[in-house]
């Protein structure tokens, strides 16, 4: 793929009027420095979240408790799938957050939005007797609209994303409490009035012969779609451009405001999806669901190597970051490490990941 610009095609028509030789039309092979980007350290840092994931994974295998027959409990398929299910909500949130953080923004409202979506799912399915698809569609739409509105405030009113979404965090939580009457709404399945269609309970189950948890599968599918989208779409180039240099993006004809609004919309949509998953797993819609999830989501994105300044990072990184934090949670829990100590260890990992980012040559 490396392309050396050769001058087999003299761009000019050969009749430069000045008579002065087009200086540099035959350069001595340019200033070649393509090789140095693939040096060991740089590669390591480029994919740091991935190597981090492998490292934490291996450490987990070593430190895993053994079962009755000497098997490594961490590596049992049951444990691994549980691990993925446990991070599926944070993972879905982190995917949405990546869009916003890539443009140099932040979204603090996603945890509250998850709560709002969980409550919405429960109320619509039970009290309002919506069908499963209709309820999901309404909740997703609500999340999308909430995100779009925040994006509009950021893009058009030019209020900082931190402030807009801090307000959004409060408002979504308030809406969730209003909608639920401040109580946890149980989802009772059945066919009568006030009972939810059984199909919704699928979210709490396992497919493929009862092996793969449905939320884990959803996360995996969304992850693949998101990675592909960020690699191949024109829109993703706009995201990176706006995050990297907003002014240059604007002068290149990138519709900067539209890009911002859409990024926040996608983030809201993902938070709502996470809320639906949450309701399906717990069979309740609690107005207090998802408190501080935004911080876990941001942590996953940061551990994944995406810069909070915008313009740099990747979706693959975010997913590796979410998995890394999930593996860490899992192994600490398996070893029954004190939960307070768990928090401290997680904090250290996040700082370490961010510090490693600084090592990367910043050009």
């Amino acid at each position: 793929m490396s392309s050396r610009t050769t001058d087999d095609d003299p761009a000019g028509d050969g009749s430069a009027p000045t008579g002065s030789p087009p200086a540099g039309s035959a350069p001595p092979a340019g200033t070649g420095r393509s090789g140095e980007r693939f040096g060991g350290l740089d590669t390591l840092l480029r994919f740091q979240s991935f190597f981090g994931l492998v490292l934490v994974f291996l450490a987990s295998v070593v430190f895993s408790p053994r079962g009755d027959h000497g098997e490594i409990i961490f590596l049992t398929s049951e444990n691994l799938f549980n691990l993925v299910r446990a991070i599926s909500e944070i993972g879905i949130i982190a995917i949405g957050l990546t869009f916003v953080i890539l443009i140099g923004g932040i979204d603090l409202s996603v945890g509250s939005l998850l709560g709002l979506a969980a409550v919405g799912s429960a109320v619509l399915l039970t009290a309002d007797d919506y069908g499963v698809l209709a309820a999901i569609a309404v909740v997703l739409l609500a999340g999308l609209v909430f995100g779009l509105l925040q994006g509009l405030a950021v893009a058009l009113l030019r209020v900082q994303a931190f402030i807009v979404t801090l307000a959004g965090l409060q408002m979504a939580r308030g809406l969730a409490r209003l909608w639920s009457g401040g109580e946890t709404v149980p989802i009772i399945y059945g066919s009568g009035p006030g009972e939810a269609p059984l199909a919704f309970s699928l979210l709490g189950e396992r497919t493929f012969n009862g092996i793969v948890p449905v939320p884990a599968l959803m996360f995996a599918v969304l992850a693949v779609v998101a990675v592909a989208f960020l690699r191949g779409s024109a829109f993703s180039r706009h995201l990176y451009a706006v995050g990297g240099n907003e002014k240059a993006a604007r002068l290149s004809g990138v519709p900067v405001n539209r890009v911002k609004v859409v990024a926040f919309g996608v983030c809201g949509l993902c938070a709502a999806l996470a809320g639906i998953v949450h309701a399906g797993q717990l069979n309740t819609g609690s107005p207090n669901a998802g408190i501080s999830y935004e911080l876990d989501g941001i942590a996953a994105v940061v551990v994944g190597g995406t810069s909070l300044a915008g313009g740099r990072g990747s979706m693959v990184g975010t997913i590796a970051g979410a998995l890394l934090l999930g593996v860490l949670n899992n192994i600490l829990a398996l070893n029954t490490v004190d939960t307070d100590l768990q928090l401290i260890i997680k904090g250290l990992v996040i700082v370490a990941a961010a510090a490693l980012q600084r090592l990367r040559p910043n050009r």
Partner: protein
Amino acid sequence: MDAAPPLVELRGITKRFGGVLACSDVNLTVRAGEVHALLGENGAGKSTLMRVLSGDVTDHSGEIRVRGEPVAFRKPLDAQRAGIAMIQQELDLVPALSVAENLHLGREPRTARGTVDRRRMNARTRELLRHIGVDLDPRRQVGLLRIGEQQLVTVARALALRARVLIMDEPTSALSGTEVDRLFSVISELRGAGTGVVYISHRMDEIGEVADRATVLRNGGVAAEFDARSVTAEQAAAAMVGEEVDTTSARRHRPPGEELLSVSGLGLRSGGCDDGRREPAGIDLSVRGGEVVGLCGLLGSGRTELLEALFGSGPSARWYGQVRLNGRAYCPRSPGEALRAGVAFVPEDRRGSGLTPEHSVTANTVLSVLPRLGPLGLVSRRRERSVARRSSRRLGIKLGSIADPVGTLSGGNQQKVVFGRMLLTEPRLLLLDDPTRGVDIAAKAELYRLLDEVAEQGIGVLLASSELAELVGVCSRIVVLRGGASVAEFDASRTTQAELLTAAMGSDPDQRDSPTTSVGGGR
């Protein structure tokens, strides 16, 4: 003259940036109680020389002597300690703090209990300000002061730091007439107190008024020295532009095409700069297909603002007057709209507003033409690379790999990446704002060749430049702007650089009331 050694003496200062000789063997002295004007076109080496003197550039050859003693500055602080202070064009004050707090930042007087002694601080400040003949309340918040007053605060701060030599870089560019008068009276106070001043400016009327001696730099070397009181604008202009060989002439005679762009009576008003004293005279110009029209004007002449208005990128500038593109009314509200109408723009500050330095050459090249690279909003990586490769080759961009971050390329090559991005949009009108600024001579020649090629294809070009040689060499017509209006138009083959400069500088003292620039940091 004086038996005492001069305050500052620069001997044989030479500095290269890459292949560009920014200063070559420059000698300059500043004596106590003297205002020494430094003149020269952009790129003549003024800023580099002053960065050497203020300890910002240290890897130069030649010698600096302060009061006869040779010194070697390793950082700006060394120069400050030697009594040399530079007043920047962008003022580095803390807007939220008071005048007194800014003057004592980091050196606040303390009371016995260790708290800040405001009374002493304010009294000291009042005295310092009185010393330079300025009447300002030390307790006023700096962010609420006018630009001119803020500038005086920076002068006072330099004196508080016991500066013996002040470097002022175009200090009047953002000041109104009365503020300029005030600054000049401060400068004459300083002169009386034995301070040496290096005064950089483009404005000839000011030089005669404020300076004792003038040194003209050209292409990094000293071109002439004058007695500032008796030199005429024509003499100075001739020394600044010189009789250099025209290396830039890339103009070819070709029949001009249809009229592409016509601007008549265009006025720009970007909120807050209207002091009501200037009649809203407008800008008139036209560009035909295949024609390169130059825009000449000093800082604050409305040059950049005109281009921004034509590209729909101005900071919500309100404008009046008429603009037609291909005979139809044209008023773009965003760069995207302008690009779709066939108008492209290469901005002045490529790092700040042209490129994303850490992204690849490819990503930077194709940013404006993504929809062409695949169906359904997808981008084919293969097609993207081939477009970027072709563009790089066409423009002769020297690079290792198109996957390299564009920030690793040289300035000229970076500029070509922006140029290439714009050409990919297949524009009919190309707007360029100082495209060769900070670009070495070889890259310049290539950009000129490209410009000629572009015009050959029937594209109309509007080229704003602060380099007169460039305008005269590349354009077919040149429109001169001053104070937001077009004041003259020249046939480039029948004009001289000195004639252009004289028209751009004018002699009208009202011209000082140019649009204000804002202070860094805002409030």
